[in-house]
């Protein structure tokens, strides 16, 4: 044992005295003796090369100092979006998900002790079904990208086909993850070109043949634009392909649900629902499908049942799909998912409610339109894609977007995300996201900054 007096941290609970008694009960002379099965040649005979320990007092200051090196969304007027958005996280969400009973529990394998998590998942599943119009939703995936990837794999398995159409207008993070997920599988990804910032429906129609398992449609797409979802859905249907829709959950108060345009599978990034950005994670992905897909669904599913006394209760249902039962034949390898983030999601959706989900949709689209119209008037700035949008708009600048960003950040404005790294030829394009936390004055401030710069 490293230290003779007391434990190395306040998280350890065995005193030196107790240790001695325990060793005696075990019948070994020392801690060292417990490790006798570890061959000498693989023993580490030096201390790990790690920085010295810190007590909580110093650690708190150290972590605060590190955090202070980051410019967070509230330290500047930020229009960054492109996949993650600084939506408001209600105080009640944080207060509730940090309750130890939720936060420190494992996956609800023992339902009798886990009714809280299980019922919350059931309510989460219901909320996601309500939003998407699907029949079944799982308990969460890691993020929106893996949700989409799992969705495509499901569609390939279900249809027995091997090609998936993946428009360029799908977010590059999703496309990248999908490419990795299929890299070992017999699945071919076929890109679909973009016209005017939109997936070209004609190209989709042309590419749809009897080998195509599905189209992955992001709507609103990576550029914030609304796709011709009904037409693409109809095209899928006539080709016997399935539609996997990746959607922004906050759009679904005003936008038609995936079910309405024929999707069999809906996926999405849950971050806008009560989850902070946290430099990209943890957030959660959601995945929902038509009943036909139920047994192909990866991950946890909570279901309602009764106990031996007839009392209502919830359990993990259809576990035979999962890796711990089905092993190599499982629908996916996912085990630990993003339950606490999904819990934040269902609390958020309950906070927002039926009226709120519609209201926020209206607010976001209206503000985004106001900003787009306002920026269109700035000399030198233009609107490259005329289509309808949701909460994020793309504008074209008279300079590289990265230059604008660097300049405006000096004055506390982060004007959005430069698109050049993602789309060739779009160096002067910038994606600008608007939320309920961006009042008109904030939008005007951005517009004025551009006016001043390009005057």
């Amino acid at each position, binding site marked *: 044992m490293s230290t003779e007096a007391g434990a190395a941290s306040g998280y350890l609970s065995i005193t030196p005295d107790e240790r001695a008694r325990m060793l005696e009960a075990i019948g070994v002379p020392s801690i060292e003796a417990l490790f006798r099965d570890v061959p000498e040649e693989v023993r580490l005979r030096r201390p790990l090369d790690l920085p010295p320990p810190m007590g909580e007092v110093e650690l708190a200051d150290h972590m605060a100092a590190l955090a202070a090196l980051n410019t967070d969304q509230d330290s500047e007027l930020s229009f960054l979006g492109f*996949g993650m958005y600084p939506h408001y996280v209600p105080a009640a969400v944080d207060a509730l998900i940090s*309750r130890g009973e939720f936060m420190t529990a494992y996956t609800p394998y023992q339902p009798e002790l886990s009714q*809280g998590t299980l019922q919350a998942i059931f309510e989460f599943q219901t909320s996601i079904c309500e939003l998407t119009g699907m029949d079944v939703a799982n308990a969460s995936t890691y993020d929106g990208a893996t949700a989409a990837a799992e969705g495509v794999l499901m569609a390939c398995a279900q249809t027995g086909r091997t090609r998936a159409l993946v428009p360029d207008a799908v977010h590059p993070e999703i496309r990248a993850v999908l490419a990795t997920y299929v890299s070992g599988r017999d699945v071919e990804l076929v890109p679909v070109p973009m016209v005017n910032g939109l997936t070209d429906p004609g190209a989709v129609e042309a590419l749809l043949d009897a080998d195509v398992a599905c189209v992955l449609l992001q709507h609103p797409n990576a550029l914030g634009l609304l796709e011709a979802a009904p037409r693409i859905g109809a095209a899928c249907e006539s080709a016997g392909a399935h539609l996997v829709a990746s959607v922004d959950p906050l759009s679904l108060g005003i936008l038609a649900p995936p079910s309405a345009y024929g999707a069999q599978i809906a996926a999405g990034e849950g971050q806008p629902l009560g989850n902070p950005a946290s430099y990209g*994670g943890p957030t959660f992905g959601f995945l929902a499908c038509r009943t036909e897909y139920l047994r192909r669904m990866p991950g946890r599913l909570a279901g309602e*049942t009764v106990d031996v006394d007839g009392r209502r209760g919830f359990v993990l249902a259809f576990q035979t799909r999962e890796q711990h039962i089905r092993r190599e034949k499982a629908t996916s390898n996912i085990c*630990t998912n993003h339950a606490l983030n999904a819990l934040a999601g269902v609390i958020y959706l309950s906070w927002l409610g039926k009226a709120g989900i519609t209201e926020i949709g209206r607010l976001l689209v209206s503000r985004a339109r106001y900003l787009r119209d306002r920026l269109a008037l700035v000399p030198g700035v233009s609107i490259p894609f005329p289509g309808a949008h949701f909460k994020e708009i793309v504008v074209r600048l008279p300079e590289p977007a990265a230059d604008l960003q660097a300049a405006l950040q000096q004055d506390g404005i982060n004007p959005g995300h430069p698109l050049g790294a993602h789309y060739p030829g779009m160096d002067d394009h910038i994606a600008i996201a608007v939320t309920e936390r961006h009042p008109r004055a904030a939008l005007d401030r951005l517009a004025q900054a551009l006016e001043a710069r390009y005057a």
Partner: protein
Amino acid sequence: MPEAPPPTIFERSVAGRRAGRLPGLDVPEAALDSLIPPELLRAEPPGLPEVSEPELVRHFTALSRRNFGVDNGFYPLGSCTMKHNPRINERAAALPGFRGLHPLQRPERAQGALRLMHELGSWLGEIAGLDAATLQPAAGAQGELTGLLLARAYHEERGEGARRTRVLIPDSAHGTNPASVTMAGYETVKVKGGEDGGVDLEDLRAKLDESVVCLMLTNPSTLGLFERDIVEIARLVHEVGGLLYYDGANLNAVMGISRPGDMGFDIVHFNLHKSFSTPHGGGGPGSGPVAVRAELEPYLPRPVVARDGDRYLLDDDRPRSIGKVRSFYGNVGMAVRAYAYIRTHGADGLREVSETAVLNANYLLARLRTLFTVPFDRLCMHECVLSARDLKRRTGVRALDVAKRLLDFGVHPPTVYFPLVVDEAIMIEPTETETLDTLDTFVAAMAQVVAEAEEDPERVTQAPWTTPVRRLDDARAVKRPVLRQPAGEAVGVGA
């Protein structure tokens, strides 16, 4: 106080109520169908619950009270490392500079996060005895997939991609291992366990050839036993050009004591939500970083956090990378917690963590060995696996019954029926954060359950008796699936 089973949040819903208030429209109002083509508009709003904040808070508070976490008591769930989740880690992750940091913030303005990620990566490398690490995988299983794809890239670059298709996995392995193999497009080949609970070297030798991608092992194994032949195993696998993959779920046994890299492993995944104390959250989020030997470094998911003097940056120019396994850079919020945890302990502290975890498990093994069957009579590592085989033969009481009866004692039961190689397995992982008093209380509870099994088996087979619900009908949940609140039915029930 008796708490009636709460209705669902949908059943509490009453039309016209709401908790959240949004800002009013502060820009010119326009008809929605002038902003959005009418065919893209929604006809009916989604049926989200309509509740006020007081109800919202009460509802989820009530749900939480029907849950059990490490904060509520002993949680010796084998293979899950349910250690205490330090509260300072939560505070650190909630700092606005971490919590509110956008992943696309320019790296110049995310130096704190990048530095933390870079340091954590290098510490994990040091702990694993390997050269480089990625924090991108979101959980252990995704770490496995990542590791397998790294192996694929490695073999492909050596021109052996087509030849190597089989992944060896001991029969005691966790279900994610074979599932990940399938995800990676490989074939799972089972390796038998030997007499002493280790890998059967004969069987291994028989299955090793140049079609092998890698051998996936946990060490200590899921039996809680250290693989004594690890050096020989590594030699054998490497001899045929295969790689050695370390499932880090059991790392809590060996931190600072023995490093996977030194054992011969080439790829290691960590579970920050196990060994490094980040909370499990009722099923995540976790975090599954992967560390590798230098030869495998070029294949790591992109971007890689790199260092250039005093500056940290995201290097996305990684032509040999396997790509991305999830969006952005992984569960950075969990990395913050794990960083704080490692920083709290330092080298000696981490070693003491493992030593104490192993001490506690052996203490339980010593005290429980007369109550149950001990499949392998050895010292265990951070967990011990017992069997209820003989108990079942004598009394009809199964491992599941023991687990259910323990619920009445206010402890979370151990893992049961895993690993699969032990009949009626009871897998106990106490972790290092428990007190001796808690361990002793658990032993007493186990002794009482066994006594009951002998004297009054129904007391055990019908348990639990005192939980908010009793045994639930799993079959019904599949035969008559109710996976969501039926639409429409719910609203207004509460009125």
